[in-house]
């Protein structure tokens, strides 16, 4: 049957592009990570040094700090984003005309450029003329004198808020559309049986939405881990190294310190963490058969 070949022919272009654009450089940078190569010293790759760069990473407190910061940042982002998005989704998933308008507009933050948002946040968090600092101070007086980018905890909150602001609308709209496409009779039955809204949510809504929630978690994790522009534009990893996520510190090592070998090793370790995470998620997805 011709389908036998067609299915591979259809797949082939995509696989070639993915292999060429992801796996070729991925393997190439593994090779670099086994060498001592500082761009400031030479234009060509230096001597082969085996796993020394990896050994160095394990003794590098900066690396461990970045791992910690990355996990905190990603964890906070995913948990907050999903919780808040779920609350917003429940609120917006009713069939009311004004809500439908809001749902339509809510996608806008997703289309904004992360670099622009990072810069704007820095502008708006300025304690002397920033809109956010003034508004927050007016609404919650204890927050009036907070230096948002001056304390490790607050700076992390500020950075997380950029990602949340950009992605919550998208995630909650995903959940809204999932919630609205669930069959109404299940909820009707639950109501007749006298289930409280909370019980309905826990025992019906959540399990039915599980595949969508998983997809949302994967997307949110990926985009939290890829966050780069907001760190460059908002905190530059500070104060101290409290917001220096791995993606940023790899970039620094590679393109500010030009230590290519070491940067590739750090990047590889980051990739390993991420691929483990990915495998974990995929197993969850496959188990739930959400993605056939």
């Amino acid at each position, binding site marked *: 049957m011709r*389908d036998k070949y*067609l*299915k*591979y022919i*259809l797949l082939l*272009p*995509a*696989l070639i*592009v*993915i292999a060429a*654009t*992801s796996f070729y*450089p991925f393997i*190439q*940078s593994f090779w670099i990570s086994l060498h001592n190569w500082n761009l400031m010293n030479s234009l060509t790759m230096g001597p082969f040094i085996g796993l020394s760069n990896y050994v160095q990473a394990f003794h590098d407190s900066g690396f461990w700090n970045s791992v910690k910061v990355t996990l905190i940042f990603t964890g906070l982002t995913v948990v907050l984003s999903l919780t808040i998005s779920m609350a917003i989704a429940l*609120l917006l998933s009713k069939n009311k005309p004004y809500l439908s308008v*809001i749902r339509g*507009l*809510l*996608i*806008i933050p997703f*289309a904004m*450029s*992360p*670099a*622009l*948002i990072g*810069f*704007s946040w*820095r*502008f708006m968090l300025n304690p002397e*003329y920033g*809109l956010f600092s*003034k*508004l927050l101070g007016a609404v919650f007086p204890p927050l009036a004198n907070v230096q948002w980018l001056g304390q490790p905890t607050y700076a992390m909150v500020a950075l997380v808020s950029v990602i949340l*602001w950009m992605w919550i609308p*998208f995630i909650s*709209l*995903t959940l809204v*559309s999932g919630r609205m*496409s669930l069959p109404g009779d299940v909820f009707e039955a639950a109501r007749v049986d006298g289930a409280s809204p909370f019980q309905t949510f826990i025992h019906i809504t959540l399990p039915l939405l599980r595949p*969508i929630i998983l*997809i949302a978690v994967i997307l949110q994790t*990926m985009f939290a881990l*890829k966050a*780069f522009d907001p760190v460059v*534009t908002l905190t530059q990893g500070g104060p101290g190294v409290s917001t220096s996520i791995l*993606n940023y510190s790899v970039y620094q090592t*590679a393109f500010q310190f030009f230590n290519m070998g070491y*940067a*590739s090793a750090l*990047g590889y370790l980051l*990739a390993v963490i991420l*691929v483990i*995470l*990915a*495998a974990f998620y*995929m197993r969850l997805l496959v188990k739930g058969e*959400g993605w*056939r």
Partner: protein
Amino acid sequence: MSTPAGTNRAFKTVYSCLEYLAVAIIVLIFFVPIAWIVLTAFKPSQDVYTLKLFFTPTLANFRAIFSYPLDFGPYLLNSFIVTTATLVIGIPISLFAAYSLSRFKIAGKQGLLFWILSTQFIPPVIIALPFFILFRNLGLLDTRISLIIVNLCIIIPFAIWLIKGFLDGIPTDIEEAALIDGCSRFGVLTRIIVALAKPGILTATVFCFVLSWNEFMFPLILSRQNATTLPVALMLLNAEKGVIWEQMAAAGIVLVIPSVILVLLVRKHFVQGLTLGALD
């Protein structure tokens, strides 16, 4: 339960008031920053560092970014060319792959799907250097082609994923009927599937447009001047004197308008496209 009707009604009123309040807060949180960026873009420079809501609006900031020495016109053009070419190449390729993955039995399909998605977990920064060296050797540095190639690596996995999810949700009977009528598989794909999966394909296209349009790190590293795209040009406003906010805001508006328009155009299908495949 014998709650007096009055209390119940009062409760309902309070509840719906709270609901309005919550919705209002959400709208404020997500739209006040945008409104502020828009206001800043129209402010004359002496009002930028005030919280004034009323001022004499000016187009000077927009004029500034499109005239010498900033000259954002060519960067905008680069962004358009790179993103359009990326989508024109990437979306059909992804559609084919998604169709194949959705409709056929393929050995090791789960592994393949995992492999495709896992590329998105590779930190882009470690891909950047080999690309830089490769493009240097090919003489492709600072060309739009190089940016199109790397953007394909960003969008194709997502596009496959989104389109496949959508195709999974489309029943196969129409296709089978067409096949029996003598239509070829490829004909089914290009005529019937494209028509049926239009919302999904549009969704994926817009999603990928946003990713490609806003891509920052690769053009930062791979372009010099001729191929520089708008998000990187934004950095030009982070000058020795710090960030020129009002011009940054104006450039930001120019930058986001195309993606906002597209996203709004397909908003009905946009999110549905993501969830359909997963739910049924």
